[in-house]
């Protein structure tokens, strides 16, 4: 236990902006985001992430916004296990043929008003996988999209910015 406490105190709060990895941008986005989330979502934005066929790189970066350095929870953003509680769907990948139905069902299970954000180049346009027998292309081919976050994969900062843009609409 003493080691755990030692580690906690030694680490302190790493959430940015703190040296040695100062990145004022994150804080700026966060403050704005926090305001909007407070106003529109009563301080909490529940996100359901759906992988509709991605290569998993986008998922890794979505994980990263939950790490203590980006710490998205401080802005009221949290990820929920069910679409039933979600305000926003964060969808990655080109929509694979085999995921199309599951994506539609997830969308239908999300209560309105629901925001859909396409994350990554593949989700925006189909990316390198394009359109084929197995890939339907971008997310908008299957469900309406409110905002796009391009990148292969988008960085955690780009993800936070994109979410802000989507809720600020």
């Amino acid at each position, binding site marked *: 236990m003493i080691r*755990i406490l030692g*580690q906690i105190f030694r680490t302190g709060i790493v959430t940015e902006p703190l040296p040695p990895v100062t990145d004022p941008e994150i804080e700026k986005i966060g403050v704005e985001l926090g305001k909007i989330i407070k106003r529109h979502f009563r301080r909490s934005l529940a996100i359901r*992430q759906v*992988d509709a066929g991605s*290569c998993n790189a986008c998922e890794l970066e979505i*994980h990263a916004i939950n790490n203590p350095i980006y710490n998205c929870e401080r802005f009221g953003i949290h990820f929920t296990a069910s679409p039933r509680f979600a305000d926003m769907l964060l969808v990655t990948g080109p929509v*694979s043929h085999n995921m199309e139905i*599951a994506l539609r069902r997830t969308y239908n299970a999300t209560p309105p008003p629901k925001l859909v954000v396409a994350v990554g180049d593949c989700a925006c346009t189909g990316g390198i*996988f394009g359109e084929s*027998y197995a890939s339907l292309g971008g997310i908008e081919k299957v469900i309406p999209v409110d905002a796009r976050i391009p990148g292969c994969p988008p960085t955690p900062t780009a993800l936070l910015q994109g979410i802000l843009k989507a809720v600020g609409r």
Partner: protein
Amino acid sequence: MSKLEETLRSAFGESATQIEGQQPSSIAAFLVPRERFAEAAKALKKEYALLAAEWATDETLLGKGFGIYACYRKESEYLIVKTSAPADDPTFPSLTKKFVPAYRFERQISSLMGVTAIGHPDQRPWIKHEDWPEDAWPLRKSFDASKSLPRVPGEYRWIRAEGEGVYEIPVGPVHAGIIEPGHFRFQAVGEDIINLEEKLGYVHKGIEKRFEAFSWHEASRLAARTSGDTTVAHSLAYSQAVEALTGCIPPDRALWLRALFLERERIANHLGDLGAICNDVAFAILLYQFMRLKEMFLRTNLKLFGHRFMMDRIVPGGTTFDIDADGVTTILSELDWLEKEFERLVVIYDENSSVEDRVRDTGILKSEKARELCVVGFVARASGLNLDCRIHHPFPPYDRINVSIPILVSGDVHARAWVRVEEVRDSMRIIREILKTLPDGEIAASVGSPMPDRAGFAAVEGWRGEVIYWVQSGLKGEINRCMVRDPSSVNWLGLEQCIHGNIVPDFPLCNKSFNQSYSGHDL
């Protein structure tokens, strides 16, 4: 002559003929008569070989029928055994009774290539979901990949369990966490799982078919996106296969840089996994601590190599990024920092009895089973199999690097976690060695066009395990076939088998300790 080659020759004599044009020449490839395909498997199994991959090709454009290939591995040797089937009789004898992983390989072959394994115990399609038209075989040359697939009514026949108190839990494809999609179906009695059946294929993006539409150079971007967390290893395996095919020798500096990228990818993923395993036993502090280390590590990648996961940094012929003296200093000082931080966390993990209670004796994959399933990577090493391409099939520069791998025998969640701990330590040491040795010179060589009807093979030890690529050129020197074998293609079977008798709440933990790729498997 290698042992496997000797075995095959003594069993087959003149009826096994060596295949020309298979590169590198160190990998022997033989053609055997179709009716004796399974006999070869039997002979090689007696020699303690493992099945590494099995795949089919449509060689009609090359004036042949279908090719069926099986790749065997024993210690440092790989052996490819090929047979062929005429276009009007696309069948071959199943290897499933000799080698368990053939179970899925052959279902995949029959689903996507329409070449049926005779004697296979399970004729259900794999990756091809029940609503695909039955005659949609995308890997055939006659299939038009640009058209979308119509849906037809169909039902997947699940394995059922009956009896008093037996119930079923369907999970997925959309999971609770931020992970890839797949379906798991449990049959349980009370808390105890009596069977788990996986149904994958949800993220099938037609990658193998798509390769055939690209030039060799463009295709390296696709290889890098086959499994996003293993982008370096996939790019490397693809590049090595293309280099074998074209006879290109990358400059020495590029080889060492590739090893640097590969070890950095290993460390980053292992850090993430260790955190996630701790999270699944509700030990959140280590999740956040390990994620912090991983984040810092990824930022260094971004700073030095321009991409957090080092995507597209390896291409056929060499690398696209170099490192300067400042970069070397940055990495060295980062390693000093990381080592100190990492070791502190490892002690916390190791000393915590509530963590130990959950991870020990959970999800045991016994040695015999691991061997039977031919699993690879850290899953194999946690179950007593001494397997690592960096040692057994040392692609340069690993022929000049001393790699030491941990072998644990308990095969439980802890073993799979601890193999990662030891590998992080060793990778840090390897990176120091690489930076000390890094030769001067160019970082890329030009890649020529391949000769028609040739094949190139490469096996690389990614962080999850052995990644295999086998590429074949067509008559115009284009990509006729690119076979991808991610470690997940075999390791998913291990998860199914290790779960029996465990309790339902331990499934996420077992799953996380395997952390296999859906995208790399579904392709």
